[in-house]
Structures are given as C-alpha cells and as structure tokens.
C-alpha cells in the first residue's frame, strides 16, 4: 500500500503495518536469562566481529527518539523518560529500549549538511559525500575486510530490501549484498524436484572442466567473478537452515514481534550467529512530513519492543560482545513542526544510536541547544561515524584496502573516529 501522507519518496512505497497490530500483545520483557543458551554462546567464542545496521528509512525524528526536547516550542507532545543509564533520557515512545540503554550509546551532535534522501542514505552508509570516487558501502567494505573468504554464507546481507549491485563500488560486485526483500531466500535458491544434490554436483564438476579449457587461454577479473558466483550458489544452497526463522522457539518469535520488522530482526540475529559479517535490516515509513507524531507513535511502537528484544537476545547469547549494532537514518527531522503536524528533512542537528561491541556503554556524545535547532557541543558528521564503526570492529580506520594494485583509504582521510565513544 502506498502511503498517502508522505513526500512520495521511495521510502514510502513499501507497505506499512497497521497501528493496532503493532501494539497488540505487548507483554513483559527483559527477564534476565530468559534467552540464555550457553551452547550457542560457546560457539561464538571466535574473534570475528559483525555489524548489524537497523536502517530507519525516511528519516527518524531525533526529537521523538534519542534527543527529546519536551516543553519547548519544538518538542512536540511526548515526554522524555528515564533509561537504565542515570541522567540519560530518551523519548517516551521507546520504553523498552530505555531499559537497554546500559548496552547502548548515543550521538546527539550529528550535522551532515544534507536534506536529500538519496544523498543521506549514501552518506550514512559510505562515510563520505557522493562524489567522484566510487567508494564501497559499509557492508561491502566490512565484508571485504572481515568476512572469511571461504565462508559459505555471504558477507553482506540486506533484509527487507533488494540488493544493489553498484554498492560495492571499486571493491567489485563480488562484495555487493544478497538482498532478501521479504526476509526469505528466493525460491530460486531451492533445487527443483528431480534435481538431486548428487546430479547437481556432478554437472558442476563437468562445468569446471569446461571452464578450465577456456580459462587456460584467458582469465580476467570478470571470468573469476563469474566462476566464483557458481561456487557461492552451491554453498548458499547448503545453508537454507540459516534463513529459517520458523526453527526459533515460538516464544522468542512472539517477543520479536509478528510483523516484518520483528521477523527480519530475528533473521538478522540468526544470520550473524552463523557468521554473516554485515546485516542491514530496514524499517520503513519515517518520512513524516504529515502527522509526524502519529506516525512515530505507530512506527516506534513496532520498533521499540523488537529492538529491545534483539539487544536482549544478542546479549544473552554472548553475541553482543562481537556485534556492533547501529540504528541510523538518512537524516533527522526539522525541529520546527509544520502546519500539517509534520516534520521535514533535517541534517543540521540529529542523532543516532549504537549498541554492542567496541563502544562505551551508556555514553552520550555531543549536545544540541535547548530546542534542538543547533549542535552546541562536539559536532560530528557521517565521516566521523564511519571511522568510529570501523574502529569499534577492530579495524584501523586510517588504513587502506588494495584495489587492483592501488591502496585506497578505507575511510575519509579528512575525518577521524570519535575517540571518547570507543571502548
């Protein structure tokens, strides 16, 4: 269903959940140890780090989330509530998330100087402004730097979105994402009836021999990518299990929420648990030019419980020490409330949230003024954040990556990490 209220951007084309459905069945959460599964936690002893990005498409309002300004001309109707970190308050639309604040950190002083959806999406996931250099998406970059080469699962998966073949930039499409728009492996990943594994492997052996004949004479980056894609496909078919959230306990599935975002977050955890390096889950409909408050009540109602469940689940499995979780949008929303009770695009003073590995838990970086119209302390932008994510994952963000014999800086050399945010 197309949303009639918003500005007509692509962020709105995807259907939204009914409001009542999202609030139905809210029950207690946060019982320590509820999710504890020591066996799985043991399996996570490895050193591999992961990045889980929750992308709130359209532009989450910082005022209805991480940087509330109640009682001011820009504050809107909602209150601020206490969190599990003394002195840190967030919007009352996030009661479950508030209880997870001791695992999280906030950056409240983002100025990205942009109000365009496409540019914002690019900035926040590439760490630079769109320009001449074809730099890779954060997912492609981390897949290249952190994902074990022979891992049967892809390094970069988007849940709730299609993959984008251009996003790997100069790293090449090999590092582009596998997109799972409806949170499932596409039907084409299943062998049809009548094609047994044995038959299939046998013909692939024959295929390799046929290829060897050609490759002995001419071998290029393109031919390598082509033959590699078949090996990837074979491996992926062995990994159907990783994508089956039906195998999760019913109770846990309820906690995550019986809606696409809930299922997608649960899938994300499953994939990360099985070694995928970067997972991006999209939650839509934050582009609230009209009815900002109703929309945030609705959307965050769905987001809040799922997100809190996700952090609790990751923590109880011992995964949170290995996973950096980032909640981001392309920009924030105007402090000024427009005549349609909406807020418009705003890049001048907004916030993001982080959780998990490599960061100071409970930290709040930067400050905006009384009614949120300006950053007054520790202004940062997407470039600083990009460095910070990489460092939190144990990567030297001032380093380079080799592309066709050239050393390319992995993050904007004109920026540096937010040191006080790092653990």
């Amino acid at each position, binding site marked *: 269903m197309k949303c009639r209220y918003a500005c007509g951007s692509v962020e709105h084309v995807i259907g939204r959940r009914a409001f009542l459905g999202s609030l139905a069945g809210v029950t207690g959460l946060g019982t320590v140890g509820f999710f504890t599964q020591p066996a799985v936690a043991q399996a996570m002893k490895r050193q591999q780090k992961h990045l889980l990005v929750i992308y709130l498409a359209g532009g989450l309002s910082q005022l209805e989330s991480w940087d509330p300004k109640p009682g001011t001309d820009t504050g809107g109707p909602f209150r601020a509530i206490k969190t599990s970190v003394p002195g840190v308050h967030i919007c009352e639309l996030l009661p479950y998330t508030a209880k997870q604040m001791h695992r999280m950190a906030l950056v409240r002083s983002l100025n990205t*100087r*942009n*109000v365009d959806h496409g540019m914002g999406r690019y900035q926040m996931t590439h760490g630079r402004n769109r320009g*001449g250099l074809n730099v890779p998406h954060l997912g492609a970059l981390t897949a290249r730097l952190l994902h074990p080469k022979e891992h049967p699962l*892809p390094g970069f998966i988007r849940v709730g979105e299609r*993959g*984008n*073949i*251009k996003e790997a930039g100069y790293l*090449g*499409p*090999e590092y*582009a994402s*596998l997109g799972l728009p409806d949170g499932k492996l*596409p039907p*084409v*990943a*299943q*062998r*049809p009836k009548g*094609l047994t594994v044995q*038959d*299939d492997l*046998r*013909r*692939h052996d*024959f*295929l390799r*021999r*046929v*290829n060897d*004949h*050609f*490759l002995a*004479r*001419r071998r*290029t980056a*393109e*031919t390598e*990518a*082509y*033959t*590699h*894609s*078949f090996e*990837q*496909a074979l491996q*992926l*078919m062995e990994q159907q299990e990783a994508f089956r959230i039906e195998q999760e306990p019913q109770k846990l599935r309820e906690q995550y929420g019986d809606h696409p975002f809930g299922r997608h977050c649960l899938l994300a955890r499953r994939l990360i648990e099985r070694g995928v390096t970067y997972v991006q889950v999209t939650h839509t409909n934050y582009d609230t030019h009209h009815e900002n408050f109703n929309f945030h009540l609705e959307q965050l109602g769905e987001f809040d419980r799922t997100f809190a469940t996700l952090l609790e689940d990751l923590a109880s499995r011992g995964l949170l020490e290995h996973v950096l979780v980032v909640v981001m949008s392309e920009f924030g929303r105007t402090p000024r409330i427009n005549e349609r009770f909406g807020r418009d695009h705003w890049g001048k003073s907004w916030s993001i949230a982080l959780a998990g590995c490599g960061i100071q838990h409970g930290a709040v970086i930067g400050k905006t003024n009384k009614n949120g119209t300006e950053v007054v302390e520790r202004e940062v932008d997407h470039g600083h954040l990009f460095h910070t994510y990489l460092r939190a994952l144990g990567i030297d963000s001032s380093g380079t990556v080799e592309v066709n014999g050239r050393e390319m800086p992995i993050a904007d050399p004109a920026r540096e990490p937010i040191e006080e945010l790092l653990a």
Partner: protein
Amino acid sequence: MFDTSVKKERVLPCPPGGEAIADPKLPKAELYLVVGSAKVRPVPRYSRREQLAQVVAQGTNPFLKRNVANRLWALMMGRGLVHPLDFYHSDNPPSHPELLELLGDYLVQTRYDLREFLRQLALSRTYQRSSTPGPQFPKELLEPSRFAVAALRPLSPEQLAWSMMEATGTTTVARQRVRQQLLSDPRLRDIVSLDSKRQRLLEEMVQQRLVAAWGRNTQVFAQHYAGPSGESQDQFFATALQALFLNNGSVIRSWLTPRMGNLMDRLLQKKDPDQLAEEMYLSVLTRFPTPEERQAVAQYLQGRDQDRQKAIGEMVWALLASVEFRFNH
C-alpha cells in the same frame, strides 16, 4: 543543502558549450503551432530541444561528438576510450585522446552516419584482435585500456536469453512452427512463392512473431543480469542469485526438455558419444570439441545408460553455464 535565504540568479537555457539563449516571449495564444490534446501531440512554436538538435548537428561542441564516439566505441570494443562511460570529466582522461578526437571528427564529417561509423570500427585492427593473448604476450599489454587483446565482452541479458534459446534449439523449433502456421494460409503461400524479396518478408514476419512469443523470456534474464535502470550497463557483475537462476530456474529446465527437433531431442538420437560431443559443442559453443573434450563427454556418459537423457541434459547445462558461453570472445 537548501538554503532558501539566498536567492539564486535566474539561469538561462544554454546548449552544451554554447551561449545562453533566452526563450522568446510569446503571447500565450501563439505558444503552439499545434495545440495539444489527449490524442494530439502539441508542436510548440519555439522549442529548446530544437536548439539543442541544431548544436548537435553542427558538431562544434567537442564534448558531445566525442561522447557519442566513445559510446559507440564501447559498444563495439567492450570498453570506452573514456571509461566508465558515465565518468566523462577531466579527472578521468581518455586512454587515447588523439584517437577519440579523430573519431569525434569523423562522426561529424559523416553527418552522424552511425552505420558507417560502426562499419569503420568493425574493420579496424583493434576490433579484429584475438581475445587470446598467447603464451609470450607481455603482461602489461593485458591492461584493458591498452586494447591490445580483444576484451571478453559479457552478453547483455537479452543476448544471453536469445543465445540460450538458440543454442538449445528452442527457437529453431518455434521458428519452424510459426513458419508452418503462416504458410497454412494459401494466399500468403502464393504471395511468398512469387519472388525472393517476398520470401524475405516471410522470414521477417516469422522473426516478429517469434520475438512477440518468446521475448518475455528476456525479461526474466534482465531481472537477474541487468544493472540498475538508468545507469549505463557497462560494468560486469556476477552474483550467486544469477547462478541460482541458471541452476534451479524453470526457464532453463524447460529448454533442456527434449522436444521434437530441439537440441536435447537431436542429442538423444546420437548413439555414438563422439558424434554427440560434436553436435553438442557445435550447437552451444559453435566450435568442434577438442580430443580431451570428446573424451570427457564419453566419460560422462559411461555407466549412464539408465539415465542417459539426464546425463546429456547435465552436460548441455554445463556448456550453457560456462565462461565460454557467457562472454563474447
């Protein structure tokens, strides 16, 4: 950044490389030569696009003619002199600037005769080079921008689809059926039998019907193999999903089902493995198999008498999925 406090100066329309041309001020009633309606295309008295068309035809703008030349070059050679095609700016200079200038000028000289331009490219030594470098070939000349070895050019999604249909004999069978259907009309049969020109017209009709009936298969391929819409499709990429589509998709499977006269049907009738290998390689890769390949085919068929059809289907699939089939070489 949208800063509404700064009033922008009004910018006049300006053809590439030329002077700004102010739109003439016409009274509203005279704006159109033909006033448009739901079924009538409007014709304006003054058109900016027409101004642009004149600039293009004059050939005085160096960037425009070179850009057109570069794109046509890339179409033939698999890579632009300026590459990627959409990065035409001073930080991305052409690999052979003199050549590009020459090509741009030639385009204007021939009044943008694209057919003639492409013909010249096809006759060039660059185009006719082999894609196989040979054992002693200097490594630095393998660099794609040197054009010393012909590039391996991936088939476009549409080319890939039609090539697979042709290789599997799918279109051969369909073509015959369509031709028979058309000729079942006695009037058409009489007309066609008149002369060779009308014979060719029949073949065109057959082709049209074939494209109409089978063209939708190209869409499935485009979904998997095409780049994002609106972007120049000049970057090759291979994904696991493409491979899964070939591996498990129903389209390819249906083409590997024996039907009267198609490749699988023909191969099933070849009892001698050597003849089978020949027919298969000629049909799919348009070349004879090497002695080793003949042996590999015979080996593959060994002990597969019970499921011979399956074994042959597996081999044909492998040839369709091969690097050799995927790239124009």
